[in-house]
């Protein structure tokens, strides 16, 4: 059901990965994603994959949680895999029909792409599982703060606040949606059966009350914030200050050496 959505869910823990500064984690995630695409042969990608899996292991988040995220993108993975199968332009022909042929090169490409996508999911899951959504938005706000020099001072804070609120209300909305679905089912609504068109129509009695309650909640929240003198980011301090520590520099060093390894392996093989 709706509760099964795990993407962006925090998994409580006290590992090194959890404790690393979220700003550092975001920057390293971007860096590693770029290098996953820079890796161009089996050795460098394999090296990256091993390092990412090591990171996943030291995060002490159960491996099953990572695989659960994989399940969601399995169709994409299979689809790109199949497309790539036919794109090989060299090697032995394994299978051919009509104008298409599968070659050893195609198989290699398909596996290569699959590993690449898997690693992207793993490394981004490693960030979202070990960082609370609030830490993430705080970190994004902090990383975007240079934008204030080009006249976007309030925009950065507003954006971060919007993200915090949106994340905070996802579980609330899911709960609300379930309640409304149950209420309409109790009135005989059929949400599970029927053709696509009927099913879409059956969602109207759920979506309208959900929309109305979201707007009502937004007004209530805005009022509550104003009552506590919220007036944007100016002069606002934080309860949790983010500080870089030795741990963060070790993380940085680890990531940079992984990147160095990828480049080296790219050159030598």
């Amino acid at each position, binding site marked *: 059901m709706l509760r099964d959505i795990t993407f962006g869910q925090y998994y409580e823990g006290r590992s090194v990965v959890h404790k690393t500064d979220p700003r550092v984690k975001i920057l390293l995630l971007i860096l590693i994603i770029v290098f996953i695409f820079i890796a161009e042969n089996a050795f460098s990608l394999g090296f990256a994959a091993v390092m990412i899996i090591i990171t996943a292991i030291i995060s002490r988040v159960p491996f099953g949680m990572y695989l659960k995220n994989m399940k969601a993108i399995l169709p994409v993975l299979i689809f790109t895999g199949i497309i790539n199968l036919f794109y090989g332009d060299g090697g032995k022909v394994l299978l051919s029909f009509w104008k298409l042929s599968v070659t050893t090169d195609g198989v290699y490409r398909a596996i290569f792409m699959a590993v690449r996508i898997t690693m992207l999911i793993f490394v981004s899951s490693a960030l979202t599982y070990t960082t609370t959504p609030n830490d993430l938005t705080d970190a994004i706000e902090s990383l975007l703060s240079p934008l204030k020099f080009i006249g976007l001072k309030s925009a950065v804070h507003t954006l971060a606040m919007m993200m915090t609120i949106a994340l905070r209300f996802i579980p609330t909305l899911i709960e609300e949606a379930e*309640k409304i679905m149950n209420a309409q089912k109790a*009135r*005989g609504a059929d949400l599970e059966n029927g053709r696509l068109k009927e099913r879409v129509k059956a969602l109207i009695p759920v979506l309208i009350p959900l929309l109305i309650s979201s707007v009502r909640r937004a007004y209530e929240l805005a009022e509550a914030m104003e009552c506590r003198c919220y007036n944007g980011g100016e002069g606002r301090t934080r309860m949790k200050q983010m500080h870089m520590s030795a741990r963060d520099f070790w993380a940085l060093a680890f990531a940079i050496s992984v990147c160095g390894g990828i480049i080296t392996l790219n050159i030598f093989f």
Partner: protein
Amino acid sequence: MSVLEVKNLTHTYGGNTPFVNDAVKGVSFTAEKGEIIGIIGHTGSGKSTLVQHLNGLLKPTSGEILLDGVNIWENPKEIRKVRSKVGLVFQYPEYQLFEETVFKDIAFGPKNMGLTGKELEKRVVDTCNMIGVKPEYFEKSPFDLSGGEKRRVAIAGVMAMNPEVIVFDEPTAGLDPKGREDVTEIIANYRRCTGATVIIISHSMEDMAVIADKLLVMNKGSLQMFGTVEEVFKNGDALREIGLNVPIVTRVFYELKKAGVPVPDNVFTVESAVKVLEKLRDGDGNA
């Protein structure tokens, strides 16, 4: 004649996770035709989980629910028929309104049962007459109504399915005293007109004393007591132990009795309290 029979019902949330939680444990009770049963219990005692089994929104982990002697899960494909026989009015039902007009919204339930045309119209009009939704409201948007009126329309939406058992989850929550009285009146009236069985979850012992025939006390997922209002409210100490209490007026009479005033201890409503006190006064006057 028993309409609804719950046998050894257990529901466990989160079956395969570390957060296993028995929300309802081995609950059994029977509801007779035309009875009003009040369910009381502390927050998190499993009241809401229990009632969501009665119309098949939740499937029991073990145990069964018999409606007119038939297990409601005997044919899972027919579960929607059960939902029109056992109406369930959720907490804050006004949040489920969605149609353009009050009339259409009330017609949603009966329409899902397959009613059409004249029959559908008659059903909606009859329900509105019974619970006091005036015809001039029919073409209004439900979102333009006041809180109390919205609640009334939402309740009408479930009652229009003519269920033989109707369950309310805290029907008076968030209403002013007048609204509470109105809703209580609507419920009593529905029973009078249709002879249906009514089950109400409530936190208000005072409301329960007025309206219920029997009380079912839940504590930590288990059934603690099930009996007439008098049988349950006589166990004041046991109720207090699980964070509940007896009606305020009963507490007053308990103290009066301790102070030596000759009053009975089975006074649960203000109305009966007035009668007892009047009798006492008149008795004193005569003596």
